[in-house]
């Protein structure tokens, strides 16, 4: 992938701290967490575990950015679709692509929850009918249509008339990072000049109750890498990035926000949910990403950790980072307390954050940290300037031991 270089020319974000990249920056600068009570749907556990829920009106956001959606159009879109559309609209506006370039651009989107907030409601309605009347008369069966992962990417491509390569990546919580890495590969192979890539996932009962069933949720929210951490917190959101070949970006004199210079990917093949105890897969992904970027560990100035706040993830990730980087020379931080674990969107939102870090030469703290789990990492405890920051690495890990690492390199100065 190093040649041709992949330029990042647009960013979009939605999450618990607000919509738009400016909201993300503000939350990071103010060290403000967006976690709070779950109000999106009823659950007997909603008061027990905070979530990273987006509190705004996605239809209104989209109307402000693009156009109003009719009730019929909106009815066909899941919450994940709307999150993806809003972030995509912002990224495309920022990139200001010429019409022709946008029409030939592809869409690679990472998803995991997809439209299950809609499809599960269909199932639950039927179950409730069956319980009270002994039979179900299904209505609004089209809510099932959004269960698969193709809907959000398709909605983006349709809305913005994008006709290039398409893919919906479903690798659980590493989906967004994999979508970015694979989209970059499409450009590198010459199959596309421009790709819109990222991840989007909404909250759903399945995700919320699923993580609760695993016993990995924390009633006090995540405290990544803290000795007293009790678990993670589910969130929702979307991160989208416009990627272009260097030649394409330069030819249209686009400002390069950063470069996507390396991608590594591996599978633990160890357990359905638990990471390999020595983090072998995580190490392999990081090493691959560094090799892909043609960099040594010592070149990396910051690691944006997956850092979910669960006992297993943080222990193994710290071990893997320490093994790859050998020394405590690299600052590490997790964003999970800002907006929760946004699942498939997580890797893409972290990519947006990495670009901001490179643009502003600034590192934001690992919120929630009081006492580090051990002394193996240089955890960022308060915001710090990083005037020489040139390359950063971002980790994303998913169920099934799916590991992805991305390397970003500083672009044009603001």
């Amino acid at each position, binding site marked *: 992938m190093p040649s041709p270089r992949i330029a990042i020319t647009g960013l979009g974000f939605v999450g618990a701290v607000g919509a738009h990249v400016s909201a993300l920056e503000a939350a990071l600068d103010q060290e403000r967490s967006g976690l709070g009570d779950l109000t999106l749907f009823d659950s*007997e556990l909603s008061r027990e575990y905070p979530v990273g829920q987006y509190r705004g009106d996605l239809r209104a956001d989209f109307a402000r950015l693009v156009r109003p959606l009719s009730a019929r159009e909106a009815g066909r879109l899941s919450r994940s679709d709307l999150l993806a559309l809003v972030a995509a609209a912002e990224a495309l506006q920022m990139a200001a692509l010429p019409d022709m370039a946008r029409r030939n651009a592809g869409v690679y989107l990472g998803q995991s929850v997809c439209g299950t907030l809609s499809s599960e409601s269909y199932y639950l309605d039927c179950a409730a009918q069956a319980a009270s009347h002994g039979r179900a008369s299904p209505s609004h069966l089209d809510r099932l249509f959004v269960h698969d992962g193709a809907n959000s990417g*398709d909605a983006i491509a349709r809305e913005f008339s994008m006709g290039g390569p398409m893919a919906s990546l479903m690798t*659980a919580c590493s989906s967004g990072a994999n979508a970015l890495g694979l989209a970059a590969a499409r450009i590198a192979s010459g199959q596309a000049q421009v790709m819109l890539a990222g991840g989007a996932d909404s909250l759903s009962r399945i995700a919320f109750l*699923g993580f609760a069933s695993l016993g990995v949720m924390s009633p006090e929210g995540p405290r990544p890498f803290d000795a007293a951490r009790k678990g993670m917190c589910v969130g929702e959101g979307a991160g989208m990035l416009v990627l272009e070949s260097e030649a394409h970006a330069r030819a249209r004199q686009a400002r390069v926000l950063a470069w996507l210079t390396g991608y590594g990917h591996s*599978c633990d*093949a160890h357990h359905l949910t638990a990471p390999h105890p020595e983090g072998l*897969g995580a190490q*392999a992904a990081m090493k691959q990403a560094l090799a892909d970027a043609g960099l040594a560990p010592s070149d990396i100035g910051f690691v944006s950790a997956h850092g979910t706040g669960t006992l297993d993830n943080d222990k193994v990730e710290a071990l893997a980072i320490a093994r790859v980087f050998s020394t405590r020379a690299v600052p590490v931080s997790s964003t999970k307390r800002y907006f929760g674990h946004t699942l498939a969107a997580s890797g893409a939102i972290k990519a947006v954050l990495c670009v901001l870090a490179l643009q502003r030469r600034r590192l934001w703290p690992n919120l929630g940290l009081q006492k580090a789990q051990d002394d193996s990492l240089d955890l960022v405890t308060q915001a710090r300037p990083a005037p020489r920051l040139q390359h950063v690495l971002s980790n994303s890990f998913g*169920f099934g031991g799916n590991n992805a690492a991305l390397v970003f390199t500083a672009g044009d100065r603001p």
Partner: protein
Amino acid sequence: MSAVVTGIGVVSALGSGAEAFKAAMQQGVNACAMHEFERMGGAKAIAPAYRAVAPDAKGLIDPRKLRRMDRLIRMAAVSARQALNMAGLQPERGDVHASRLGVVFGTAYGAIGTTQEFIDSWLKNGQRHASPLAFMSSVHGILASQVALDIGATGVNLTLSQRDVSFEAALSSALSQLECGRADAILVGGADELTGLLHEFASHFRYVESGPTAGCDPWSGEGRAIPGDGGAVLLLEREGGPRRALARVEQARVARHDTGREMLDDLNLAGVDLVTSCRGGSRRAFTLENGRSRVLAKRLAAPELSHRGNFGNFPTAGALQAVVNVLMLQGQVFAPMAAGRQRQDLVAGCRLPRRILHDAASVTGLHGAYVLSAV
């Protein structure tokens, strides 16, 4: 760069294993049968479907591992093992380094049966006692991960969900990964399972024939689309390796319909002598499929076949069609079934194909295509 297929595996209504599948295709078996489905609310419905047989895992997968796999995963994992066996590639023996062996799967609905199981677990036992096993097995991406876990593959691991072109999207990604040197061998497949919920869904949208068992009729346009399920896998390797190549995959692409024509223009279609499509017979898709087929037929002057009348219509049936295509390039043309009878007229005068274009479309606006050629 092109890749070669060195092994195939399949679990379908036509049987478990490539040999059973091939024999059934040769005999023109129509695997449609009446099955009982549980509708929402518990009512039972008897309806025609092409439900895959139970995967024959004997000698392929450790029974302890098998117990932890749901039906969808079993179809995928058994197909993957069959493909490895056919190629004579044993990961455990170190025939390929674990980090250079990848798994890429397409699925539209993933483990939807297990997802229902998970919801049922909290409805039955309360939200505090939902089943963690059902949750972790319900995630779409677990499909490729479980296959990797079974064979110990630590390389590229992707699951793609692209509705009716999910397999074609997986193939395109796998090819791209081989091309950029991230793997030496990749198991690429597609799998979907048919549940009562999905059958009801398909019936609602009139994808399903409501009459007696007769089988899909991909050429009728009268709503004779009968759902099915199954899984199939191709083992892809770089050309020039030690194992016998069965076919060559030259190119694979996925894009939206409005650029489908341009996408086909990008492919080198010289010498294509057969087109296979995703015709399933649904009313909704018929116009689209027919329109595309006419364009292709005119352009390539090649016959068009779809074998969904043999093994049913489902989002990743393209994976089974890919197995058919590999077998056809190996030396036989299979007359497709339509409405329960063999359409010999469609293959009359057909020569053995040397280059096959597969063209798949989804009613939601996606388009996938690949070119497969004889070695």
